[in-house]
């Protein structure tokens, strides 16, 4: 038995370090404490941890400024710079010598003195819009149908048959046939690229859903009586976010690629629309004579596609909760 009692005040503890009486609260006792976790906050924290992503984002911002804001400020007219023969088909170096420094002639001039810089960004606007619209439509339909396809056994039977039929034909063939049937325009191109384009995405999502659907935590959730809708929304969708973002990142450049190829074989947009593909097609004829006019839109198209792809991939990586540790 220790007879000596020590006065608490003598130990020199502050008031907070000592036990004190606390009223019992039923609500408070139910709370579980964990470090604060916000999904999107973590996503961006992981995303910006990589320094290369800041560089990519800056490039992406520049691309968007030049293809969406620049055309609003500068009105592009193919014949606006029509001066004399001396300003036709100039390389950037020659343009600097003949015209002097001018943002329009930064990439030289094309036929009838057309500014390649302006036309490329005007074309980029069409191409990027097309890629984003097609990707948005295909992803939306693909993810929704893919989720249903994965969940419902009845839909699975029907959709698998549909997929087996459609997947036998090369995608490009279907796209080309549809553009041929309808008259070429922006809407036609969107329609042709999306009419069966969602099917591959839906199939991919279906496989992912089936993998996750029967995991133990979902089984437990079902046993506890969670509705299917809530399981889909709260248990499965967060898991799919990174998959969807990664998929979208690969989709967007592929539509830019399709547009370029379709325009190249003369199945692209209508005559009065400018796009990267059409510029490439137009410059292809005189490629040996004026290689500059051909490679400028090709280079810009490649830069745009790579930037979009890398940004999307890295965002996809960052949105995977397993990288948040």
């Amino acid at each position, binding site marked *: 038995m220790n007879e000596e009692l020590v006065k608490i005040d003598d130990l020199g503890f502050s008031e907070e370090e000592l036990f004190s009486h606390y009223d019992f609260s039923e609500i408070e006792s139910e709370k579980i404490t964990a470090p604060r976790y916000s999904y999107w906050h973590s996503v961006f924290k992981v995303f910006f941890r990589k320094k290369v992503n800041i560089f990519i984002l800056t490039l992406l911002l520049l691309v968007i400024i030049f293809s969406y804001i620049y055309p609003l400020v500068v009105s592009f007219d193919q014949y606006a710079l029509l001066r004399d023969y001396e300003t036709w088909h100039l390389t950037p170096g020659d343009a600097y010598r003949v015209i002097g420094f001018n943002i329009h002639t930064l990439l030289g001039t094309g036929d009838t003195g057309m500014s390649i810089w302006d036309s490329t960004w005007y074309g980029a606007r069409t191409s990027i819009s097309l890629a984003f619209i097609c990707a948005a439509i295909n992803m939306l339909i693909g993810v929704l149908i893919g989720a249903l396809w994965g969940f419902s056994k009845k839909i699975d039977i029907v959709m698998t*048959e549909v997929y*087996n*039929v*459609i*997947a*036998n*034909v*090369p995608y*490009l*063939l279907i796209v*080309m*046939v*549809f553009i*041929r*049937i*309808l008259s070429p325009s922006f809407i036609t191109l969107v329609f042709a690229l999306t009419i069966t384009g969602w099917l591959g995405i839906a199939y991919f999502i279906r496989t992912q859903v089936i993998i996750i659907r029967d995991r133990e935590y979902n089984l437990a959730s079902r046993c506890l009586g969670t509705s299917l809708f809530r399981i889909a929304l709260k248990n499965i969708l967060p898991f799919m976010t990174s998959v969807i973002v990664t998929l979208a990142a*690969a989709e967007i*450049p592929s539509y*830019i*690629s399709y547009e*370029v*190829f379709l325009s*190249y*074989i*003369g*199945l692209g947009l209508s005559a009065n629309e400018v796009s990267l593909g059409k510029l*490439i097609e137009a410059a292809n004829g005189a490629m040996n004579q004026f*290689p500059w006019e*051909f490679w400028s839109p*090709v280079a810009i*198209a*490649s830069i745009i*596609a*790579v930037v*979009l*792809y*890398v940004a999307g*991939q890295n965002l996809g990586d960052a949105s995977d909760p397993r990288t948040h540790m």
Partner: protein
Amino acid sequence: MTKYLLKRLIRGALSIVVVVAIIMILIYTLIDRKNIFAQDAYWTKVQSNQKIVYEFTRWEEYGYLDLVMYTDWLNDLVKSGDLAAEDRDKVATIGKKAENDTAEVTEYVRRFTEYYKSQGYTVKRLEARMMTATKYLNGGKEYLFAYRDKPLTNRLWKYFTGMITVDNIHYVEEDIGERKITFTLHDPAYGGDKFAPAIMGNGTKHKYLLYFDNNFPYIHQNLVTLNIGLSYSINKGIDITNTMNDPQGKQEQRDVIYPTGLREMSADNVHTATYVAESRDKSVITQERFTDDYTRVVLYKSGFSKIGYSFIIGIISSFLAYFIGIPIGVIMARNKDKLLDKIGTFYIIFIIAVPSLAYIFMFRAIGSLFGLPTTFMMEDSGNALMYVLPIVSLALPSIAGLMRWLRRYMIDQMNSDYVKFARSGGLSENEIFSKHILKNAAIPIIHGIPGAILGSVVGGIITERVYVVPGTGNLLTSAISAYDNGVIVGVALFYATLTVVSIILGDILMAMFDPRISFSTKAR
């Protein structure tokens, strides 16, 4: 296993039918049928009424409608005995305008109209278009005909039922003498002394039904022919099977022995002779060479067929892709997150993100720096260098694909328990990678091999277009630009068949390599 495969094959065939039906419905109902004349030189030349009649006859030939000309109807009446031959001449010429008809003509025109209207036809009378009172405008002659659109179901049925034809001795309608099939051990095309078995027919479409020659695959048959549609503008009036299979390029002179025994240097391939009614007596040239009406021959040409070019380029490039892509994929997986892996990943991103047209042009530009030919010259068939760039352009993207997936599969395998177990058992890293991980990771890659080989026949649509390779990939793009609907349908059928077959073959190959995969449910 066999039962399963049979089921797969039937389902595959069914889905091919559905695909072709969909494509046909799209093309034949939604594309304006006038578009098929877009590249027709004759169509741009003919004028006025003649142009309209030309359009209708073409449409009949390409299965859009049934067409009956007034004169043909009269001829049929004469044949069936309802009309005397001398009366026909009286009523055959209709008036320049309806009111100019004689009473007899009016009567027959009325009967013609009534008969075909009751059958659901539309009767069309094109009145003469005159320049002066007596002189016709160019092509302005008067015409009378009836036409009826063919329903698409009818057309689909005809397409699939008429797809395979077996040559028989009742093919020729005219009198041709004794109809028979003969077997000979000494093919007359080689002079009759050399041992060369052949089966020949009389009354059949083809003279030679089976024969040997010194061209790959050495034995050839004409007994069963595949009709997958007629080409309109790409290869006028020729079936798509022939369009894809017949040799191209410039004619090649060979020592040819004709059926009459005449021997000369010529490009005629007498083995391909087909029947053309009353063709022998048309000219002295055919009389000197042929003993019967089997006079239409295919010419020897120096180039390969469209499938041939696509196949050569495709097969070499897929070999190259597997040969290079797999080792690089393994190296990348072994050096994960190191420099080699990063370089490889950069290349993969480049191929995925950059538009395919852009990098093919890039390869072309780089190739031309080394002095490689950038366009395919069929006439210059001896020059092997022209194959280099198409092969490389086709191989480089598939190398990226192989690298990407093999690396992914191997990295996934690297964390599995059996690898940890093998490592704890003391196996060397080399052994683990080559004997265990690669074996497991290669299974999905093996699945794609038949697809790559058969896909090489399809040819790179983009590559062939850029390098002007006269292959099947180029055929599709030119068919679409030229509104050659028959070719589009035929090529779609061809592609769909190849896809179905390659997926089934891939499954079989995968089951052969991996004993865990079994198609029969009982075995488990």
